[in-house]
């Protein structure tokens, strides 16, 4: 063990890096939630309320929409997590002394963000209403009537947003650990040496190693989805075919990572440790447990180099939101880039030579 520098290094690095990372990353309070506003009233009253939303620090008025469809698109694509909609007669209703309705749409496919956004929106409504009531006696009810509508997972069922995410984690973990350990095992046992003296081409060898794992990944996903649907009644709102197609890039990216690790690891033990070292940030930073919106900038950027981050968008998007490829182009391209870079690197590094 004293001689195994890599293991020793990992033992020290693991708590150091991971704790530092997560000490900073784990913020359950989500601020600056990207918000889209569709203000049909364009009045002093609507602006007052919006200012209150903005001033709370929880909502960033990132987009202004000019139609319901636009709001839908923003939230479907994940660009905005919250939509605030003022009806055209908002100001007139309030001036008459009645309650003006405001719709607050919340993307509930991400539970933690949704819960917080809903609570904050409600309390802003109450607070602002009280302020107005103190100045004017003409109201019968609260002037601002905030109607929060959680989308995609209206009942906030934990399993609905957890099952797809856990599926992603299981797949990436299995792929990374199995490939890295599998290849290192072949090297340790000498079968790899026996393989590379045959006329098989580098890329053929790679394909031979990768294809079985891809099949395995799909098998896992199928089992996990079946459990999700049959036992937890997770609705699959989007196209299953699309989900399967887009999953390919996630599997290949994970395999690429596994092969890369196998190039560095000297023993199966090390391969396992490294896989673990790489997987932990995936679990904690990808938005699986903690909302990425709440992370400090540096860590947020770190989370953009984790394949799982993109896959969570894809699988939650297709399963819960029922959206399709057009909304997920960015994520798919990112995974594709990961796959191409990682696999090319490993094929180049794997030159049918030893040492």
């Amino acid at each position, binding site marked *: 063990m004293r001689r195994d520098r890599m293991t020793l290094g990992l033992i020290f690095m693991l708590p150091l890096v991971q704790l530092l990372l997560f000490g900073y990353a784990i913020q359950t309070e989500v601020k600056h939630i990207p918000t889209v506003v569709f203000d049909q009233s364009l009045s002093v009253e609507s602006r007052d309320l919006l200012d209150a939303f903005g001033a709370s620090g929880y909502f960033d008025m990132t987009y202004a929409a000019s139609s319901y469809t636009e709001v839908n698109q923003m939230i479907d694509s994940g660009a905005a997590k919250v939509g605030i909609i003022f009806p055209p007669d908002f100001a007139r209703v309030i001036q008459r002394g009645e309650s003006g309705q405001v719709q607050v749409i919340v993307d509930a496919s991400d539970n933690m963000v949704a819960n917080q956004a809903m609570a904050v929106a409600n309390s802003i409504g109450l607070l602002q209403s009280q302020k107005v009531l103190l100045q004017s006696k003409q109201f019968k009810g609260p002037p601002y009537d905030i109607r929060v509508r959680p989308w995609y997972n209206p009942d906030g069922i934990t399993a609905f947003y957890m099952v797809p995410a856990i599926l992603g984690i299981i797949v990436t973990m299995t792929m990374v650990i199995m490939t890295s350990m599998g290849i290192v095992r072949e090297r340790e046992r000498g079968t790899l040496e026996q393989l590379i003296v045959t*006329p098989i081409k580098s890329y053929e060898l790679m394909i031979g190693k990768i294809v079985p794992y891809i099949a395995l990944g799909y098998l896992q996903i199928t089992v996990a989805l079946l459990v999700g649907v049959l036992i937890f009644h997770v609705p699959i709102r989007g196209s299953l075919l699309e989900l399967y197609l887009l999953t390919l890039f996630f599997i290949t990216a994970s395999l690429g990572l596994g092969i890369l690790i196998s190039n560095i690891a000297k023993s199966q033990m090390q391969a396992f440790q490294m896989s673990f070292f790489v997987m932990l940030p995936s679990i904690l930073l990808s938005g699986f447990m903690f909302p990425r919106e709440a992370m400090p900038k540096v860590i947020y950027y770190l989370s953009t180099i984790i394949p799982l981050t993109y896959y969570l968008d894809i699988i939650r998007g297709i399963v819960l939101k029922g959206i399709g490829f057009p909304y997920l182009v960015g994520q798919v391209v990112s995974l594709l880039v990961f796959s191409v870079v990682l696999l090319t690197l490993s094929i180049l590094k794997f030159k049918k030579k030893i040492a």
Partner: protein
Amino acid sequence: MEYAVTTDRLTRVFGNFTAVDQLTLQIKPGEIYGFLGPNGSGKTTAIRMLCGILEPTSGTATVLGYDLSGETEQIKRRIGYMSQKFSLYDDLTAAENLGFYAGLYNIPRRERKSRVQEMLDMAGLTGREDELVAHLSGGWKQRLALGCAIISRPAIVFLDEPTSGVSPTSRRRFFNIISRLASEGTTVMVTTHFMDEAEYCNKIAFISSGRLMAVDTPDNLKQNVLAGCLVELDLPNAMDQLENIEQLPYVKECSVHGLLLHVLLEDESNLGLLEEYTGVPAKPITPSLEDVFIALANKN
């Protein structure tokens, strides 16, 4: 093709350690070429280079007429290699392992079955073809690994310590197969630590610390390597005497062979002196390959 393998000052350096040092040798087609040397002398390293899976640091080599720099893929198609730990897939059956390698060497599909059967016959595995390799014992595994290495009917096979860890009967059986292969025209390069196996070879190359010390037929090596006179001593306390005898000015080497001592004298004329010193008769003998091995290893 005059030679199956030629190397010219082939060298491999790891860091600042030279594992193979300016190795120059020729192997004729159809020869059984023995590659002998102490542990760590660079045998495996040299063979790996010849198989095209390890880049030489300097020097050149041709295998079956193909240049090692740039034509490794042509070489790989025509050679067989059995690595030091015969590495089969434990979770496949004997026949599946053979089938797998038949596929890797692009043996036409319709021919595969007969080829696999041929190898099973050769290895004496007929009837056990569906057993998992994990359940086979050493000798069977070894012959199966050879089958995987020669299923493509290579013109040359490199066997790296193919008989380590198997019983004498299995070793004998294995070398019978090798002799048959060679008589059919296959060139065989084999490393071994067993002197009886070395006797099977047409040529023996001896390397030590990466350097080629001697190449010749086993008989010639026995005759020529030891300059001096080798005698056998039957001393009651051979072990205690070993150091004293080594100190004698006219003794070049002294080693234990069972209960006997082998002493290499500068010259036949020293015979009397030694008998006088030890008090037992010194019997001149023809050196064995083992004597040659030890003498060459100590030279370095």
